[in-house]
């Protein structure tokens, strides 16, 4: 995939987010400054409800930041959204039950006639194969397991060829075994396509195993507590999870998460 823009994949400058509630103001994000280079796999790691999903929604132009500025590939999030610069995977697969797996993957191409205006490099059928669902094209979501549904969601996020993949705890609702398997798949896809991934998770091991960098966030209001480079070689293998370097990273991240200062 040729990189067309030199700009960083994601740039966040002093991003803050507050919600007005009936009994005051809820501050969710404070002073988030972060640059994600193209091709990186960055995880946002933090306790549940800390605001990491909110940060992802700021990047995805679902929520406007109350403070600061966000940019995706040098453009505003709104522009990036209109250009389909990013694809999004949610915590739930959010598949439309009346469409087949292939139709669900192809949905973004139908919206705004995207498919007829842009030449997609990979068809829904190829993407289903890429995520390991060859032959399931005509299956309805209800006929697929939770893990398979999330694979369809990943394929759908990739169908309009985005440079950036935003993933909001995509495997949080899955059992541990399925989750491990999907981690493998995601790494394989990432190595193959070399897109930028921003991955929200509250699992330390998942963050270390997948990422080039892990951003540790504090409880609400979320600030960046530490950024840890994960200097483990790719391709990564499940066996690496038992290696001393791996456990050193998990210990370091756990310490950063628990740090009360």
């Amino acid at each position, binding site marked *: 995939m040729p990189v067309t823009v030199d700009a960083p994949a994601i740039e966040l400058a002093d991003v803050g987010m507050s919600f007005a509630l009936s009994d005051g103001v809820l501050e969710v994000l404070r002073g988030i400054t972060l640059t994600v280079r193209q091709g990186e796999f960055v995880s946002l790691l933090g306790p549940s409800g800390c605001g990491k999903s909110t940060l992802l929604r700021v990047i995805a132009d679902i929520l406007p930041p109350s403070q600061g500025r966000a940019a995706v590939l040098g453009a505003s999030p709104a522009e990036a959204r209109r250009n389909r610069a*990013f694809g999004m995977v949610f915590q739930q697969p959010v598949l439309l039950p009346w469409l087949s797996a292939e139709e669900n993957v192809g949905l973004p191409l139908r*919206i705004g006639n995207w498919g007829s205006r842009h030449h997609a490099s990979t068809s829904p059928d190829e993407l289903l194969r890429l995520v390991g669902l060859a032959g399931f094209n005509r299956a309805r979501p209800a006929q697929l397991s939770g893990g398979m549904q999330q694979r369809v969601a990943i394929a759908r996020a990739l169908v309009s060829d985005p440079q950036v993949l935003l993933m909001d705890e995509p495997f949080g609702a899955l059992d541990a075994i399925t989750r491990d398997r999907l981690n493998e798949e995601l790494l394989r896809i990432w190595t193959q396509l070399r897109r930028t991934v921003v991955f929200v998770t509250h699992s330390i091991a998942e963050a270390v195993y997948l990422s080039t960098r892990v951003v540790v966030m504090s409880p609400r209001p979320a600030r960046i507590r530490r950024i840890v480079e994960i200097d483990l070689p790719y391709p990564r293998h499940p066996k690496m999870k038992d290696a001393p370097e791996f456990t050193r990273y998990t210990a370091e991240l756990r310490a950063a998460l628990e740090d009360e200062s």
Partner: protein
Amino acid sequence: MSAPAVGVPARRGRDRDNSARRIALSLTGILAVLALWQAVMVVFKVPHYIAATPLEVIDALRAQPVILATNAWPTIVETLGGFVAGNVIAVLIAIGFVHNRTFQHTVYPLAVTVRTLPIVAISPILVLLLGNGYAPKIAIAALITFFPTLVNMVDGLNAVDAQAQELMHVLSATKWEVFRYVRWPTSLPYLFSALRIASTASLLGAIVAEWIGSNKGLGYLILAATYDYRTPLLYATMAVASALALALFGLISVLENYFVPWRRTGGVS
């Protein structure tokens, strides 16, 4: 990997067994009631102008097919006319509600108020306004089906899950695309629930409307048979009305299975 639908035929097969069993059970129930009814009538020697026995009803159905059919026809026209009109208007207004809050806040209370007026009281008014033909009967059948469909459709169109809305936003979908790809299909199970209620309600509306002023239709026949103490004919008329309602109900169910095949397997996952 193998084809995904391996488990499906087996499940369908079990469904079929279950539905055959269900039909058998409900027929048994009906036949038991009819037998009991016949027995009570014979044992207690109830005069036939007070109440008819099932066998007398069958005789009436066989003896007077013409009078039943000629009176069933206007009722069918009114029921279907009211059913279609009431539901179409309700669906259109519900779509308007979802896309325009001001419209919703103005019209919804009005719709609720109209609903609280007893249909028996509105009917004479509509007869005065619309004359003695099909129009007032269709209007009443439409009125009685309108409200459940409106309420269900508003719920259904709003039942879109938050993440699905975010997905459509990320895809920069227009309001029309959100409607076409998500809102409308999401609302279909709700719509069919409403249509099943409406199928029996619209017939009821048509019959009540005929009571107010009509010289044909099943409603008229019910009144005429009652005044003339032609009790078996009265019961036969009710049987015909009930059969019509069942037919419409069944038609809706068939359409639902065709248009909403995902209904049994859950919502947005």
